[in-house]
């Protein structure tokens, strides 16, 4: 593993088994279906996709909060998959999560100071006094008043709570922060504050982000590289700028075309490509390319053959038989 890769996932599969509709039947839903990716040191890798595409499950598999069904995850040169809880401990400190719902992810019965201090207490880093000092420092870093650390989560607004969540995730000096929809519950003006804060922290602490969101604008704004997920698979991955300007996969192209835009310039609006229907049931995946039933350019081969995820141009990966925007 080269030095600049912090996390590497190879062919991750995660499936859930549930009772089927018929008597005695079992159905298997494949939430993540063979995802391979690398997260480089210091970058922000954005994962974007619609609800149910498996992006949150993927994140949980990557940080070993969920056991993978198959595949391997390497982190900092060590293989994480198959490690016991005890063996995972030192790695856990290195990767922290920021959750979507700032109302649900903080224990309402603990003071926010305790919430931020807990990871340090559990990992026994320093004395209680040192921890207290560090909590005050973290509060200042994320733009909260250190005087408020004896208060409870309900006394804070959504944006402030998300800052607390961020402070907690930073308390052990992680190298990787996995943020799962960290701003989707916030109003735009507050969302902007949190995004700017995350950008500042990345610079100050040399953090690596895996940033998961459904909002294409947010993902473009924060990411160096972006992976687009559809039905448990990454269908396209590449540098944010190029991917947004010249999407290769028809799904990416359609997705980008339908984001409501502020027409505040005279530039013509992207032509909208409406894709019909809904995302299929992950327990009943289409044959061939998972996107073919909704794809505007699908042909016979798409129904039968699953396209390989290949590097079509330097640093640009796509899984499609008929990639778009290639000539340009």
């Amino acid at each position, binding site marked *: 593993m080269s030095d600049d890769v912090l996390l590497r996932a190879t062919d991750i599969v995660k499936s859930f088994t549930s009772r089927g509709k018929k008597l005695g039947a079992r159905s298997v839903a494949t939430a993540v279906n063979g995802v391979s990716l690398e997260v480089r040191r210091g970058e922000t890798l954005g994962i974007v996709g619609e609800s149910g595409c498996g992006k949150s499950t993927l994140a949980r598999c990557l940080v070993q909060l969920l056991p993978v069904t198959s595949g391997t995850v390497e982190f900092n040169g060590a293989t994480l998959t198959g490690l016991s809880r005890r063996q995972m401990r030192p790695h856990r400190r290195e990767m922290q999560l920021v959750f979507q719902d700032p109302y649900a992810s903080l224990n309402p019965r603990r003071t926010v100071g305790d919430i931020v201090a807990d990871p340090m207490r559990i990992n026994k880093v320093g004395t209680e006094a040192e921890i207290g000092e560090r909590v005050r420092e973290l509060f200042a870093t994320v733009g909260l008043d250190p005087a408020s650390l004896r208060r409870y989560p309900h006394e804070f607004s959504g944006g402030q709570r998300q800052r607390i969540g961020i402070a907690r995730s930073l308390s052990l000096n992680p190298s990787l922060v996995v943020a799962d929809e960290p701003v989707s519950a916030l109003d735009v003006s507050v969302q902007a504050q949190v995004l700017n804060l995350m950008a500042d922290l990345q610079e100050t602490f040399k953090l690596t982000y895996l940033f998961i969101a459904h909002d294409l*604008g947010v993902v473009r704004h*924060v990411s160096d590289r972006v992976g687009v997920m559809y039905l448990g698979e990454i269908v396209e991955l590449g540098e944010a700028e190029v991917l947004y300007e010249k999407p290769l996969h028809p799904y990416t192209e359609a997705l980008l075309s339908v984001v409501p835009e*502020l027409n505040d310039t005279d530039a013509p609006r992207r032509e909208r490509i409406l894709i019909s229907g809904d995302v299929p049931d992950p327990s009943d995946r289409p044959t061939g390319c998972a996107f073919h039933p909704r794809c505007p350019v699908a042909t016979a081969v798409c129904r039968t053959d699953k396209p390989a995820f290949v590097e079509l141009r330097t640093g640009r990966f796509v899984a499609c038989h008929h990639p778009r925007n290639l000539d340009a």
Partner: protein
Amino acid sequence: MLSVRDLRVSFATRQGALRAVDGLSFDVGSKEVLGIVGESGSGKSVAMYSMLGLVRDSNVTISGSVKFEGREILGLSDREMQSVRGGDIGMIFQDPMTALTPVYTVGWQIVEQIRAHTDMTKQQARERAIGLLGEVGIPDPKSRVDHYPHEFSGGMRQRVVIAMALSCNPKLLIADEPTTALDVTTQAQILDLMLKMQESYGSSIVIITHDMGVIAEMAHRVVVMYAGRPAEIGPEVDVVRYPRHPYTWGLLGAVPRVDSKNRRLVTIPGTSVSPLDVPEGCAFGPRCEHRMEICDERPVLHGPGDHLDACWLSDAQRLAIRSARSVAGGAS
């Protein structure tokens, strides 16, 4: 079509009066799409619900005037209001997952509304329900009409809600965050459908949203609300391209874009003012970078032509601020 004048909604709470809507006035023309945009707590939904008598709280006080087709509807009796709701005014809600009663089929629920407002027979109403479901793009409406809400996806449920809202040929559709709970591809389908339906039914639409992008795609005119008060009102193009109120500047600058390069987002310092504690002067004053002494007085909506705003800045000051900002930030 709809004319709202000085609408005020306040709730008596233990901490004092909570002024959710404080002096809102706007008009909706025939076949017009009006967007009301604001962040949570701006009073945009409460304003619409209170107009229609959907705020059922014994502590609420509503004043002002709401005229629908020239007829005052504020203060109508429950019974009179019932014939307006669902008849001339249809509503679409934010969360299609919870907006339908879970224990009845979608057909039953549409038929129920049709029969409440017309004297169609059950069979006729059912035929109409099937027709409507087909119109809003539900495949195989003949069999889907007998399905329960949980058997539909989110996007399909929102189509059912739209079919229901249209079932009595309303003259006005009020859509409260109709796509917020939906994915972007589904959102595009639903917005598309709403515009199509508006064309074929000729109804006016009031769309309430927090997403400036949705406004830009849908609305002819926009009301920007902050803390229960209108901050800016004007044609969509003017508000998006030449916003006049500092709050609108912040709101537009804070949106990460899909169509332009990374830049630092404009942020509005602090958090939304509590509706229990709105300042006497400009409501946005405490968070405004360009606050002046006069801002302790409440600004009135004013402006050139039909583009109004509630801000004390002079045109010259605004021009100076905007040009300084575009040089510094490189933003639009």
